[in-house]
């Protein structure tokens, strides 16, 4: 028999009397608990730029549009949504929507919400940090109580896809309590009402009985099934998994890959995955030797055994990509030719480029991706691209690579596009001198295609432009194209009615427990 360590024995003595008298708070059948990585920064939907905050808020507030699990934008508070001309979109609102206070929602609330988001200093002297997410939105016109027109300054086909990340607030309520109060007070139109926010610890919500039912395109429609929902903040991965296995919570996010087997074997919970929105790649500095030589960049792509990396390092929870776009994204082209793992071809390309004896480069990355970078470096080194990994803090590394001057070699990084539209990923990372163009890539043809697609309203034509641009980029290889990792969640085995989506949301309106 193994000896019990003394500290455990001491702890057992200390805790036993309490353990025996108090049962560890088990969830009631209709109380659903989420073990979540981060607390909300605020409950004001217009005053943050954080996905985790959005995930929590989305259970309290609804938007004009929402997103399906497979990434389509569909009307939510709107009954219908259509484009009238290249600069105008019309939303017809539902007539039976109430705020938690009981007040009806009308077009005036929509205008107020979007003015608050887009106008300078419109939040009690502050400007919304979400302003830039609405691109060229110029104004919202109230046509009648239940119709609004969104007027843009320039054509922007991605506009409907940006609406699911903006939630509608009550004009009357904000005018009564003030803008600052929205950080902690909630009067939304969502399926749950706020009960209490214990900062850093939990957010407690209860069912809103007068809920209009949610998006018609996402059945079942109706009031929330759970009586109460609690987001319990557990930042540490191991503790989150432990809380799930101990039955303290019913859903957890960001499941560490090495615990997948443990969870699935427990019989108490199972792992569920959704395709993420983040493309991982290695930006290659095309502005200086040795990576300004196409053959070296192609050799680097041929040197990587992505299948092994995905299987061994990512637990199989990632999809290999041949280009920029995730398979879920608008404009994704199946069948784009992928660089095959071929070390011999890589060596021969290097020899052709005059590097028969190999060359030395540095691969920059952040601490979180150190393992992946080390594995990639060893594969590159094997074909003759002798790679040293340098680990940095993200806040330091990003400006180095995003700056105009490109002085480093390789950068293992990623770019997310929650709207799953090329505008959010292709344009910023590969258009000449755009904000996330780390590799310094510049091709006038690609720029022309991306610019034209940005304002092209014909869906087929627009997709065609992205196909063409992606084909050029794949051939010119400014990146080592890697993968799109899946978001990994785990749920208690009795939980039904919730599946993870590609937008990292945990909307609990339809979730319930099986008997």
């Amino acid at each position, binding site marked *: 028999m193994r000896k019990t360590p003394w500290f455990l024995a001491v702890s057992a003595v200390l805790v036993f009397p309490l*353990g025996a008298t108090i049962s560890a708070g088990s969830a009631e059948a209709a109380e659903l608990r989420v073990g979540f990585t981060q*607390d909300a920064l605020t409950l004001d939907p217009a005053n943050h730029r954080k996905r985790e905050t959005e995930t929590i808020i989305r259970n309290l507030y609804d938007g004009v549009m929402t997103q399906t699990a497979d990434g389509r934008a569909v009307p939510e508070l709107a009954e219908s949504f259509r484009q009238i001309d290249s600069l105008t979109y019309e939303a017809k609102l539902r007539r039976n929507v109430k705020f938690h206070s009981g007040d009806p929602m009308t077009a005036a609330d929509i205008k107020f919400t979007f003015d608050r988001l887009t106008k300078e200093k419109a939040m009690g002297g502050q*400007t919304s940090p979400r*302003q830039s997410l609405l691109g060229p939105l110029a104004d919202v016109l109230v046509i009648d109580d239940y119709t609004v027109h969104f007027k843009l300054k320039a054509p922007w086909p991605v506009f409907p896809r940006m609406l699911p990340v903006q939630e509608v607030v009550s004009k009357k309520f904000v005018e009564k309590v003030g803008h600052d109060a929205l950080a902690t007070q909630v009067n939304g139109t969502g399926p749950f009402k706020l009960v209490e926010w214990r900062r850093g610890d*939990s957010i407690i919500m209860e069912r809103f009985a007068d809920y209009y039912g949610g998006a018609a395109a996402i059945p079942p429609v109706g009031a929330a099934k759970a009586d109460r929902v609690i987001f319990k903040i557990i930042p*540490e991965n191991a503790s989150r998994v432990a809380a799930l296995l101990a039955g303290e919570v019913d859903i957890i996010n960001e499941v560490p890959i090495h615990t997948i087997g443990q969870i699935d074997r427990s019989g108490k919970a199972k792992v569920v995955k959704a395709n993420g929105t983040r493309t991982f790649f290695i930006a290659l500095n095309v502005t200086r030797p040795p990576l300004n030589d196409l053959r070296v960049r192609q050799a680097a792509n041929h040197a990587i055994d992505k299948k092994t990396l995905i299987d061994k390092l990512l637990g199989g929870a990632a999809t290999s990509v041949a280009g920029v776009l995730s398979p879920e994204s608008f404009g994704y082209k199946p069948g784009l030719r992928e660089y095959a793992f071929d070390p011999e071809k890589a060596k021969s390309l290097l020899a052709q480029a005059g590097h028969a004896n190999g060359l030395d480069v540095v691969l920059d990355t952040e601490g979180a991706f150190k393992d992946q970078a080390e594995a990639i470096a060893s594969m590159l080194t094997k074909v003759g691209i002798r790679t040293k990994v340098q680990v940095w803090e993200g806040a330091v590394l990003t400006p180095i690579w995003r700056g105009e001057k490109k002085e480093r070699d390789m950068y293992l990084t990623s770019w997310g596009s929650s709207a799953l539209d090329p505008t959010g990923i292709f344009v910023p990372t590969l258009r000449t001198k755009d904000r996330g163009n780390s590799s310094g890539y510049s091709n006038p043809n690609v720029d022309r295609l991306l610019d034209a697609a940005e304002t092209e309203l014909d869906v087929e034509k627009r997709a065609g432009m992205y196909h063409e641009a992606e084909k050029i980029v794949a051939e010119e290889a400014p990146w080592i194209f890697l993968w799109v990792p899946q978001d990994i969640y785990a749920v208690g085995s009795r939980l039904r009615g919730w599946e993870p989506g590609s937008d990292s949301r945990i909307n609990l309106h339809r979730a319930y427990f099986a008997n």
Partner: protein
Amino acid sequence: MRLGFVVERLLQLVPVLLGVSLVVFLMITLTPGDPVEIMLGNERATPEQAESLRREMGLDLPPHERFVKFVRNALTGNFGRSFFHRRPVAEVIAERLPATMELTIVSMLIALALSIPLGVLAAVKRGSILDRIATVASLIGVSMPGFWLGIMLILLFAVHLGWMPVSGRVDFSHEVPRITGMILLDSLIQGRVDTFLDALHHIIMPAVTLGLAMAALLMRVTRASMIEVLQQDYILFAEAKGLGRARLLMRHALKNALIPTVTVAALETGYLLGGNTIVETVFGWPGLARVIVEGIFSRDYPLVQAGVLVIAVIYVSVNFLADVLYTLLNPRVKL
């Protein structure tokens, strides 16, 4: 205790706090990384929008002006607005500090409750098997990293035995109107025994995790100091006079032997306040240390500056209290 001493100590606080503020300000300002860029992430923002955000955060001012502004405002209790929480820093700190204080106090109590009796026992029975066990145990206690111990406790007591909650301060069914923000204290003041027990149930694992390492250290200090005192002439004299063993140990030896223990315990408060970061993360404890670390990663300058300042004030105050305690333990110590 002279009034002059108190005044002197209070005056000493001024350069200390000014120094802490300056060092933290310099470190965070010199660290590369732009809060505006971090906040905007990968999303589209025009240079004008980024500039407007920068102005709102007060980052358009040169560093020396920012520091002077911070100190001037801090003197009036205004620590500015947190960049990421988007509300006054004082509010964020006021919410989080009581949880950290509560955890620190309970950890310290556990540490003292374990270390003093064990230290005395080990000294009295010096060289015995008990002494050796206590010494080895304290070595293990000092060597165990908090995050590992925390996770082991969770796995054993929460997952396998189901006795303890994994995280949080109190179960959701308990509502405690806030008085001090320390749930144990608030529930006692309001006569809520069930809430008190539930909060105690929640705090034990994090407090044991933090307290054990400290207990191990304090035990070694108490043991060493006790051994030294027991060899003093006055102890031999008292023993020769036929003074009872218990009275001799508790009244004559321990009181003197505790001075180094008090010193180390006060110094280690800093360790507890800082060491909380890991334990707060492992146990989902909504304390100040965790929020400061998050603030460092997001370059939330006002939050980090004010948070560190508050911890510095607590640290200096605790050490001041330790000085006062010396006079009680040994009347020959004059302040």
